[in-house]
């Protein structure tokens, strides 16, 4: 299967690879997928005020999965949390020209963003209660 140039670029030069301190209060972590399905994405955000100031990812998966999560971190960095929630998998599909068989990679990336934000919100509401 031929990959698009953008997928190859993200695969060869993934943006924002790494990990943030998952115990930090202003860090939200999302881990989606499962090893037996061949895809696991971990996406983390660091939030200051209501802005995502940093994002990191690690992905076990095919080139399209790596590219989708790399692109997701690139897009959410600098966005307000609520803006990041508006990113949809179809935008990722379009940007990376993913073929139909790889659409689930983009779905997973969207899920990873939402899951990381949910984790962050959960943490900050717990913090408010304390």
């Amino acid at each position, binding site marked *: 299967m031929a990959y698009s140039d953008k997928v190859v670029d993200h695969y060869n030069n993934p943006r924002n690879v790494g990990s943030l301190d998952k115990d930090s209060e202003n860090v939200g972590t999302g881990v989606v997928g*499962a090893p037996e399905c061949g895809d696991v994405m971990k996406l983390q955000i660091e939030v200051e005020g209501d802005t995502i100031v940093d994002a990191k990812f690690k992905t*076990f998966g095919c*080139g399209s999965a790596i590219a989708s999560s790399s692109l997701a971190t690139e897009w959410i960095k600098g966005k307000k949390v609520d803006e990041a929630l508006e990113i949809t998998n179809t935008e990722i599909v379009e940007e990376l020209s993913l073929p139909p068989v790889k659409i689930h990679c983009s779905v997973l990336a969207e899920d990873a963003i939402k899951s990381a934000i949910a984790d962050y919100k959960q943490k900050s509401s717990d913090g408010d209660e304390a």
Partner: protein
Amino acid sequence: MELPIYLDYQATTPVDPRVLEAMMPYFTHAFGNAASRSHSFGWDAEGAVDKARKQIASLIGASSKEIIFTSGSTEGINLAIKGAVEMHGAKGKHIITTLVEHKAVLDTCKHLEKQGCEVTYLEPDSTGLVTAEQVAEAIREDTVMVAMIWANNEIGTVNPIREIGAVCHERGVLFFVDGTQAVGKIPVDVGADNVDLMCLSGHKIYGPKGVGCLYVRRRNPRVRIVAQMDGGGHERGMRSGTINVPGVVGLGAACAVAEEDLEKDAAHSIALRERFEEKVLAELDYTTVNGNHEHRLPGCSNVSFCYVEGESLIMGVKDLAVSSGSACTSASLEPSHVLRACGVGDELAHSSIRFGFGRMTTEEDVDFAAEQVISAVKRLRELSPLYEMVLEGVDLSTVQWQAEH
């Protein structure tokens, strides 16, 4: 060194120059139809086909009358299994096969199941091996045939064919063997190995694509099958259709070369395989070689690189032509049915790559390949959340994964 390096010898092989040379005249001036009896064009073609038949028979320990030319192994498999079941329907409709067969056998069996046959699928051990005891236990009164692979195309495991064949003969059951990967790579003697029917394919043994043959035993027992294609009654009525003379000549030449070079080829492939595995295993942790380490095809190395997904690894070793298993199933995203049957978990099956070494592979190729694999795995593990979790001491089997499917 030319890039990319071809390391997919179980998918197909290049045509050996000696084979190509033997074929050439039959495309040009010696173009006759081997069935033409009225002129020298036909006689020359027939002579060339007869010679090829002898060369093939010699390699596998058969007589030349027992060789039926086909378009390849898929046709040989269909003809052998369907042809035998159709011939012996009165005896019964039970077939024994294994879970680690090529799709051509599995799908032929599925087809026959729809037509009322019963099929027993033997489960291999964790190395992909099926034993004679398992076969003996599965044989019933109404068993027509045992159909199984000699050497597995994905993991290279070599089955104890001689022992299994002895069981089949003792119990009066036909024994069909898919010899596609084994012939020309390991010693094959259909007489001593108790094989009744066996398919092989030209392009797996440095011959041309689109040609193969089915060995059909003529004595003890005399095997009879029903043709699956009607026509001119070629190949003793078992396979109609004008013989592909250049292809058949190539298949014969490939068998002659394989017979002459069998030991040399095997030693070469084993040395390369071991060189590759030593290098990779020395540099990478959480890496295992699948299949049976004792009974394995010389040139086949199926390796699981934990916590790295196979497709991304293939993308990372862009100068290597490798595959994640069978070429016939590489279009699907499902993990290999062979590794699954061996009890390899889906997560590890997704992390497995098949490396195939052969006659034209060099040490330089292997060294380059090992380096590229090692650096790609290391890079992808830097990207892998699973590898990070394992290094942190997390037991992945206890993690609640959030997956929809």
